[in-house]
């Protein structure tokens, strides 16, 4: 995690660092504005009439270099540093766009890539696994353990934390196996065996290490470890990783989101069930039936997150 953070901070600083070379030619920052707008920022003011010449810019989606996007209007901000290109049609911001700007001397500078920030994309995977596609309430996975361990808040927290740890470790291991063994040797059909094997291995390893290193923690959390294997979320995450061909950072975010989502679901559910114990429930609904109905209501609430886009 630290490594990724440092890497990204460095990258971000690099992009944002004010560069004073070739003031007029150099674009210091580029991003999407409104749905049909790309904003270019220059480190120093540039000439307004030059900047407003549409022939100066060529813009296309990276995957379709032969189809140029038509520029309708070019606005330059008052201080002359911000140029916004307005297009006839709205842009597909999910795709990387390439903007080439011709310099004053007619020489073309290399294409500037305009895309959503990668960190934002990673966060969107996290949010998606946590809320939008919550594994319990919208993908309906891990229900046996979910209903089994959501009776008390303390159990719910313990289970959620242990589960998240095992999930992250096993998903990252699965990623290595998938990328460096299953794909190169065309052994994709062994996915199930390899992934479930890695999960069991992780659980066993965490069990042994925890028992030796921190027996007190083991006493409180050890019981949940066995349950982790019987949870289908833990095998679903590597399978989703494989079908979407995620890279290392994306896999990390996905597993963290899945684990966090499970923790969240368990916590919400256990809070309700602790109260249900005090309520006067018809005898036919006591126990699991009412828990299912509550879960259904949560699922409907989580449906509201559907289509949420933060980044």
């Amino acid at each position, binding site marked *: 995690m630290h490594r990724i953070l440092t890497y990204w901070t460095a990258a971000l600083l690099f992009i944002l660092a004010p560069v004073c070379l070739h003031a007029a030619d150099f674009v210091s920052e580029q991003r999407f504005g409104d749905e049909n707008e790309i904003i270019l920022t220059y480190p120093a003011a540039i000439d307004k009439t030059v900047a407003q010449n549409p022939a100066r810019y060529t813009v296309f989606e990276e995957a379709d270099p032969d189809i140029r996007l038509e520029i309708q209007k070019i606005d330059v901000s008052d201080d002359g540093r911000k140029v916004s290109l307005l297009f006839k049609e709205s842009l597909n911001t999910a795709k990387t766009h390439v903007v080439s700007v011709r310099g004053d001397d007619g020489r073309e500078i290399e294409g500037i890539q305009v895309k959503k920030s990668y960190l934002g994309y990673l966060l969107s995977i996290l949010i998606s696994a946590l809320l939008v596609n919550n594994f319990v309430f919208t993908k309906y996975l891990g229900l*046996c353990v979910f209903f089994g361990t959501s009776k008390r808040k303390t159990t719910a927290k313990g289970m959620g934390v242990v589960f998240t740890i095992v999930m992250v470790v096993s998903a990252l291991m699965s990623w290595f196996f998938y990328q460096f063994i299953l794909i190169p040797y065309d052994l994709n059909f062994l996915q199930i065996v390899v992934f479930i094997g890695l999960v069991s291995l992780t659980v066993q390893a965490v069990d042994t290490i925890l028992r030796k290193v921190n027996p007190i923690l083991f006493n409180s959390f050890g019981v949940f470890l066995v349950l982790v294997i019987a949870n289908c979320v833990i095998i679903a995450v590597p399978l989703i990783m494989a079908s979407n061909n995620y890279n290392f950072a994306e896999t990390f975010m996905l597993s963290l989101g899945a684990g966090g989502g499970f923790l969240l679901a368990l916590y919400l559910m256990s809070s309700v069930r602790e109260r249900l114990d005090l309520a006067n429930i018809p005898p036919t609904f006591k126990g699991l039936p009412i828990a299912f109905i509550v879960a259904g209501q949560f699922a409907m609430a989580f449906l509201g997150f559907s289509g949420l886009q933060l980044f």
Partner: protein
Amino acid sequence: MANDKTSMQLISRGILSENPIFKLALSMCPAVGISTTVINGLMLGVAVLFVQVFSSVTISLFKNKIHPRIRIPTYTLTIATWVTVIDLALAAYLPDAYARMGIFVKLIVAFAIITMRLEMFACKESVNDSFWDGLGMGLGFMVGMVVIGFVRELLGSGAIFGYDVLGFKPLLFFILPSAGFFVVGLMMAFFNWIELAYKRTKGKI
């Protein structure tokens, strides 16, 4: 430990008194997730039946050769093998149904019900009995899935097996994903109610 039950008793136990979905409340995920139509429920039920029967028989066949220390890994490997086989077969021969079931076929590997039967039954009993036990549990799961699928398809899209029977859609809500929880919860309550009513009448007599 000798088993004193006949094959019929073993099957009926799986379907009724120890139904994996309604009684044991195990392997609920597909019951909620993809039981929107009868066909979906039936297909996954068949897949689970296949894995359960074959794993039970395999473990029962080799029960004397399995070292007790590596019992669980052997079970996992056995189940994973048969899941891979059914996964490949479905993908090849029934691509449409496979696409609808999505990730759930692969997830059979993590179904608690299968491991539980191996641990509690197949590793002790004869091959024959294990076969019937596996069949009973698999059928129990299939029946559960089909019943839920039936209710949801009938109420949600007014159809059975894709054929329009009602001519209108009573409650679209029932095929929405989250309705799976409600249907399973209500059906559990319904079975509880029957059981309670039965006990009450019995108590009076």
